[in-house]
């Protein structure tokens, strides 16, 4: 089974040279620690930055320089800043090649729910609806099951949707799956996980 960092490292293998990419809050933010050598990607932070650098060393934190998860970060030589309207203009405009996002549920048709549990947790969609509607490719990184052991990969989402038929690939602590015609296709198993274990933890249909 992969831990958070291993999931982030696996997600980093999705990156291609020259891409502009957006990383969501949580595990996706960790992906920037694992960008493969020789691959040049520019990270977008939807609060208004291209060319997001690593976390600062202690004492170098700048309250005016944060990522979309509100964490302190640093800039790079190629960094550019812009306002939120332009930031989402480039997202909606299809300029961002890929988004890597967290999720509460993903359906076998690629529907994504990651913003609201009715009557319970009120957080909001943030920029996730804009991202999944606008970027070229959507990769979800999340635990395979909920805290209660229930599958987060479902035949149909039960929670309010963030986007309909928007997810291309799912990376979980148990493996990697693609959204394909008729269901999910298993591409890889995490270290020490058997196909039977992954199938047992998955409510969505896995095609053969």
């Amino acid at each position: 089974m992969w831990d958070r960092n291993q999931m982030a490292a696996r997600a980093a293998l999705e990156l291609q040279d020259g891409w502009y990419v957006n990383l969501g809050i949580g595990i996706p933010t960790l992906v920037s620690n694992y960008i493969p050598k020789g691959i040049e990607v520019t990270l977008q932070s939807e609060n208004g930055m291209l060319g997001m650098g690593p976390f600062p060393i202690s004492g170098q934190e700048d309250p005016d320089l944060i990522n979309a998860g509100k964490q302190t970060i640093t800039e790079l030589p190629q960094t550019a800043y812009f306002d939120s309207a332009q930031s989402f203009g480039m997202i909606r405009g299809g300029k961002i090649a890929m988004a890597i996002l967290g999720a509460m549920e993903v359906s076998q048709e690629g529907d994504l729910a990651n913003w609201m549990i009715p009557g319970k947790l009120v957080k909001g969609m943030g920029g996730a609806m804009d991202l999944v509607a606008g970027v070229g490719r959507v990769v979800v990184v999340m635990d395979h099951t909920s805290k209660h052991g229930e599958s987060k990969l479902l035949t149909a989402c039960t929670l309010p949707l963030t986007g309909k038929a928007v997810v291309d690939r799912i990376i979980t602590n148990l493996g990697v799956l693609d959204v394909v015609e008729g269901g999910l296709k298993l591409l890889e198993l995490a270290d020490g996980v058997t196909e039977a274990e992954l199938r047992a933890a998955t409510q969505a249909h896995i095609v053969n």
Partner: protein
Amino acid sequence: MKKIYPTAAAALDGLLKEGMLIAAGGFGLCGIPELLLQAIKEAGTKNLTFASNNAGVDDFGIGILLQSKQVKKMISSYVGENAEFMRQYLSGELELEFNPQGTLAERMRAAGSGIPGFYTKTGVGTVIAEGKEHKDFNGETYILEQGLFADLSIVKAWKADETGNLIFRKTARNFNPPAAMCGKICVAEVEEIVPTGSLDPDHVHLAGIYVHRIVQGQHEKRIEQRTVREA
């Protein structure tokens, strides 16, 4: 015409009305108009609607106006960091209109640009699309969203000149330019007011035409998630 005011309270004098819609800049606690929010708290104006990406934290940003029960409604994209917000919302004391973040920014930008509505694919197939006009362009479905016209804009910039030309700093720019554009009147708080002529005109981020009043002050600039790496 003088745009410079000595205090945040003076800069808001005569502008605050019960029930008004205020557009506020900032993302999280970054680039929020903290001095103007404190002045609104001290003014005690009630039943306010805020269009702001977030709602601050319990004791900073818009959170201080939630504590004093001055906010009737929030138009936001993400409010996850505020326990008092959740309490008031779940108990029905506070209205909430969720807008996707890019839709919120564009609603502000559009209103400030004289555009009352625009089509976007953000939110198609979700609850956000319910009750909104759908229209197909080139085989794809879009929904109609409306410009967000505010009564008052409050924003925070790094520097202003005496005519209200603004320069922002790093990611503290965020919602401030679109928020500034969409109000009938805009008040900007800045860290420094410099003499007119000392900003390079090519480096101005927001032209003073959008900014009616300016106040300079000391900012706490609180960090919400201090995150560091090993040296």
